[in-house]
């Protein structure tokens, strides 16, 4: 009952004219960002982060949240009509949806995708609202040692899962932690890694680094590819309304996709692509007509589309209840919260209930707006996407430049942004995951604080991390998450170099 009452208050906040404007703005930007090739939700959120800084915390979160889940809808349009997955989580939609579009079912596929995304988004929000406050209430009993355990699990999972080689993930995490340590030590005030440069005493701010790593780096990759959209954009909706059979085929894939997406979304480091891929794999396996997959199966659109939308709600659970972002986009959201003076985690529900419940309610409102946008304005979005591609790179770069400058009126920050843009571009080229890096920057301070608080309480005894059952369990899980990927890799290596049996010297005599 209490949750419903708080959610009701949240709706009053979310439906105020000011916040409604930001929901609409965020969802439109998200849809465009999702539809535009080479610009994902993380880059979109990073580029608009300086805008968010000018808003009040509730409106800022509402706008950034709108971009995040709006991007999941946007990716569908260009995937189905142009066979261009705006993001990697839309590849299954492109594979099946475009085949259906070629058979003249493009409009119907988009309607099904929008409705199923809406249903999945709304259902997963119910799960989010039910789960996050309960988890947060439980996490309130955590002391610094338990908090450090939770952070360590999050960091370890993301570093281990974000790359095929955990070594690279851990290196990026250490690099991110190192960047976060530049400036004054949070406990003693000792300068660290400033090398006598006064400007570095304040540290390297999250905003220019993030805009550089995600916004500028993405644009540099686009510049290299020199992408041009040459598709015929005449939509040719011969039949906008899905048939009864198409609705029937989509129901259960959407339901399964919602559950798969939500629970995969909760796992740090998993992301929406894994959710969509898992859903596609399940649908292919349970289908009575698996041969249709790859040739235009509507189940292959409804399942993954529901899964990637549900995963965005799932990804909100760890950030809101435990203070651990589980994806690059939620790491940007985490940084935005810190910039706004909020401390993501279990206390958020108690210290800033209006912000958090307003944000959660705005996600319901945003889903309704997205359903309207993605059913009535599909042709307009497609045309806008195609028109925007030629000027996209220049526009995004200028927006990054001015946005980062506006943050602190500093061209030095713009230089930092450009430096990290080049670093991000090179790291992406060499398959170094950027997610652990950004997480190291945003979580470094909190992780260090909880580590040092724990050791201050225990007077330097590290056994504090195993002193309570919860802390001991969390630390054990963290250690397993750290060690297992390396052990698995070593086992694979030993299996690969297992000596082959020597040829029998007498064998030739038998021939």
């Amino acid at each position, binding site marked *: 009952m209490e949750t419903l009452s708080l959610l009701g208050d949240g709706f009053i906040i979310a439906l105020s004219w000011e916040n409604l404007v930001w929901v609409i703005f965020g969802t439109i930007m998200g849809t465009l960002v999702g539809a535009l090739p080479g610009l994902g939700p993380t880059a979109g959120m990073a580029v608009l982060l300086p805008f968010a800084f000018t808003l009040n915390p509730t409106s800022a979160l509402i706008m950034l949240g709108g971009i995040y889940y709006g991007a999941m809808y946007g990716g569908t349009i260009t995937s189905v009509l142009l066979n261009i997955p705006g993001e990697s989580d839309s590849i299954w939609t492109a594979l099946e949806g475009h085949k259906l579009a070629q058979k003249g079912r493009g409009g119907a596929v988009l309607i099904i995708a929008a409705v199923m995304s809406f249903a999945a988004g709304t259902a997963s929000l119910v799960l989010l609202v039910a789960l996050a406050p309960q988890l947060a209430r439980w996490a309130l009993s955590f002391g610094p040692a338990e908090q450090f355990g939770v952070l360590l699990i999050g960091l370890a999972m993301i570093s281990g899962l974000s790359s095929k080689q955990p070594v690279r993930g851990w290196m990026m995490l250490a690099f991110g932690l190192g960047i976060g340590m530049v400036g004054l030590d949070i406990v003693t005030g000792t300068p660290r890694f400033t090398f006598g440069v006064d400007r570095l005493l304040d540290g390297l701010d999250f905003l220019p680094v993030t805009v550089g790593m995600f916004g500028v780096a993405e644009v540099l990759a686009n510049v290299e590819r020199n992408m041009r959209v*040459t598709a015929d954009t005449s939509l040719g909706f011969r039949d906008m309304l899905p048939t009864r059979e198409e609705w029937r085929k989509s129901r259960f894939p959407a339901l399964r996709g919602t559950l798969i997406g939500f629970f995969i979304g909760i796992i740090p480091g998993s992301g929406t692509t894994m959710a969509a891929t898992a859903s596609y794999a399940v649908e292919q396996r349970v289908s009575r007509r698996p041969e249709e997959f790859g040739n235009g199966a509507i189940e292959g659109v409804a399942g993954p589309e529901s899964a990637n939308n549900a995963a965005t709600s799932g990804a909100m659970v760890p950030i809101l209840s435990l203070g651990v972002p589980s994806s690059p986009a939620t790491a940007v959201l985490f940084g935005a919260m810190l910039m706004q003076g909020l401390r993501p985690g279990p206390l958020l529900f108690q210290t800033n209930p209006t912000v958090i419940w307003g944000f959660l309610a705005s996600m319901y409102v945003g889903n309704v707006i997205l359903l309207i946008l993605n059913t009535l304005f599909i042709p307009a979005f497609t045309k806008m996407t195609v028109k925007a591609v030629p000027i996209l790179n220049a526009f995004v770069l200028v927006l990054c430049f001015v946005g980062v400058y506006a943050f602190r009126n500093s061209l030095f920050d713009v230089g930092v942004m450009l430096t990290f843009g080049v670093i991000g571009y090179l790291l992406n080229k060499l398959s170094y995951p950027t997610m652990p890096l950004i997480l190291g920057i945003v979580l470094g301070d909190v992780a260090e604080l909880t580590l040092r608080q724990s050791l201050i309480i225990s007077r330097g005894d590290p056994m504090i991390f195993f002193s309570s059952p919860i802390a001991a369990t969390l630390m054990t899980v963290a250690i397993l998450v750290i060690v297992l990927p390396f052990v698995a890799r070593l086992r694979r290596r030993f299996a690969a170099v297992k000596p082959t049996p020597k040829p029998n010297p007498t064998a030739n005599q038998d021939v």
Partner: protein
Amino acid sequence: MTEESGAIDTPPEQSARDARIHRRLDLAVALFFLVLGLIVLQQVWTELPLMRMRQVGPGMLPFGVGCILVAMSSMLVWQNLRGEAPAGDPSIPTLLEGSRVVAVVVMLVAAIGLAPVLGTLVTLGLFIFLELRMVERRSPLLSVATAVLITLFIYITFEALLGVALPAGVLGLR
């Protein structure tokens, strides 16, 4: 459909060249992180105590970070020297593709330097025009029109609506 400037079917000799360059670049990055880790450890050794007044000092986490960087980058260097292929797509940008990226970075560096001289809006207008015309090979008309419209958008959004004082040039132009 999208068109990309890179070749679709990479000839075998180019694949071998790409793999070789990719491996060298990967080794260079691993060595960079190895040196970075050693610098971090040197800073901890000389300036950041691990313990202070029987409590954890400012050097504890940097020490951990330095150790991880050295250990992980050493593993990558070792793997590379043993001839193991680095992870990921080994496609290396062609000279033309690489030069486009370098041109944009150089133009951005120039924009940072020129903003306080010419004014931010003038500089960014020039940047957009040059980026579209020289890097993306768009038509002169589209380049000029886009430069003017985006500059106007930036002026209205940042100066007029958000009240951000963008750096003015020596002639007083924004």
